[in-house]
């Protein structure tokens, strides 16, 4: 190989590495841009009408006499739906994960697992549509409500979307519990069920908690399905049988009709920032738990 050819090759190698590093750093860039552009569009709100406006009690951005940008009803709406969805999804998700990893036979597993993955693959609008057409009317007649479009319907729909996340990640966590724990427990005379609930699940608990947190992250950020089935009334309520309006649904529903640059437009970006911070904290915490968990296992 001549010297010039070698030099050329060395340059080529360097160029490839720079290119690949560049590609990797776009991820950081995109995160920065997401925060930046949300902040940029939201910022002028601080001067007019002022951040205090977000603390108002009502959200009625298009009213002429009493325009109000209080995000409290939206936050409570999101929280109510999320908490209900978590209460529904966690037992199913954890049960499913324990079953798949500890009890199911191999053919059963091969059959069930794709179903759970299938559920994760269904587009959220389609699940929302199903909730609107099938679940909402059933709930309405079951509980004798005026409308089926209430927080509970949203929670059920969201639980459907959180379950695959919880099952998949919890199952990984449970499977990574060392075989020796199980053997020790069985050798000490514990039964299979005792071993599962008193040894395996506690050993995998941090992984399961992380799975639930990631599931919640998905639920909080879910937009279309929840917009289709919760009725979208911006009320401060803790009742599962009342219509609520989540942060996500507010952005999606109102951004289309808002005047660019208006206070309403900026307020919607503030809602986006709250949402972004919420999911960011949740995710970072879940990752931290998972990382600790991996270290403990290794």
């Amino acid at each position: 190989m001549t010297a010039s050819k070698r030099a050329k090759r060395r340059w080529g190698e360097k160029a490839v590495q720079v290119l690949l590093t560049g590609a990797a750093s776009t991820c950081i860039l995109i995160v920065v841009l997401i925060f930046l552009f949300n902040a940029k569009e939201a910022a002028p709100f601080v001067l007019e009408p002022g951040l205090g406006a977000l603390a108002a009690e009502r959200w009625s951005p298009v009213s002429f006499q009493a325009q109000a940008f209080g995000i409290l009803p939206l936050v409570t709406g999101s929280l109510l739906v999320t908490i209900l969805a978590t209460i529904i999804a966690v037992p199913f998700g954890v049960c499913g994960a324990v079953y798949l990893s500890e009890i199911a036979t191999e053919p059963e597993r091969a059959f069930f697992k794709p179903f759970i993955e299938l559920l994760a693959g269904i587009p959220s609008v389609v699940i929302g549509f199903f909730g609107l057409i099938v679940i909402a009317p059933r709930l309405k007649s079951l509980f004798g409500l005026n409308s089926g479009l209430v927080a509970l319907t949203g929670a059920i729909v969201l639980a459907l979307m959180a379950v695959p996340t919880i099952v998949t990640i919890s199952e990984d966590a449970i499977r990574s519990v060392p075989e020796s724990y199980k053997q020790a427990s069985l050798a000490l005379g514990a039964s299979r069920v005792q071993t599962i609930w008193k040894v395996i699940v506690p050993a995998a608990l941090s992984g399961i908690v992380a799975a639930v947190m990631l599931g919640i992250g998905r639920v909080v950020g879910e937009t279309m399905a929840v917009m289709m089935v919760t009725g979208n009334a911006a009320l401060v309520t803790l009742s599962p049988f009342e219509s609520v309006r989540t942060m996500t649904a507010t952005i999606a529903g109102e951004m289309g009709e808002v005047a660019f640059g208006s206070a309403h437009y900026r307020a919607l970006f503030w809602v986006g920032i709250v949402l972004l911070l919420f999911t960011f904290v949740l995710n970072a915490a879940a990752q931290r738990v998972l990382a600790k968990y991996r270290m403990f296992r290794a």
Partner: protein
Amino acid sequence: MTAKRRVIETATPWAMRAVMYFMVLVVGYIIFDIVIHGAPAISREFLFEMPRKGGAEGGIWPAIVGTVLLVAGTVIAALPLGMAAAIYLSEYASQNAFTAAVRLAIVTLAGVPSIVYGLFGLGLFVLFLNFGTSIIAGSMTLACMILPVIIVASEEALRAVPQNLREGSLALGATKWQTIRTNVLPYAIPGMLTGAILGVGRAAGEAAPILLTVAAFYLPVLPRSVFDQVMALPFHLYVLATQHPDADKVRPLQYGTALVLLALVLGMNMAAIILRNRFRKRIRW
């Protein structure tokens, strides 16, 4: 073992089995419901004609075309970038602050709600870069959204290639990039494509990001350039189901649209799974 214990020992697995079967039933029911009500609506006219009367009649052709174009744009933007980032992470990255930052960024991106991607796309692509509500703005937004999916899956595929294939090549005097190109990528590409298809399936089904960046409520013409607005299947379904003044009357059209969307997305997921299994069968380390 006491009698009570024995009951618990047999009842618990059965109870959990019941929970599992219930979940499978629910999934089956959702799909069954969409298929059984959607199938009668599917016809040549429905698939290949323009909508009429605000979507109350006619077909969904522009929505199908719109979704395909958006997905194509997303792939063009996200695939090379995602694969390159994955190669960096798996082959080049050392344990330093930069790598940690990239990993944190990927995890963060994966957790950002889809509607926030919509806000971001609106702020950056539609307004700041002045693309307007257009295919290109929507594709870019979706590309940012599926980037973490592609990177994570691709990196996993790269890491599954045994280390000694790399070492053999390096020992023979090949450079690092030559090694990656000839001895790593050929074995990792199917796995990387699997991840890409999963990401794309997600992009095709998402309505929230395109809501603010590209989707047209009702637009019975095909786009002529990447700066045009288009209709898209998920948004069209949303509009038909909730915004239409006579929602009950267009029920068959809603179900038809839901079925087409479901078939498209699940078809892609299925393709990814088949590809993955084939690949696993073909190569055994």
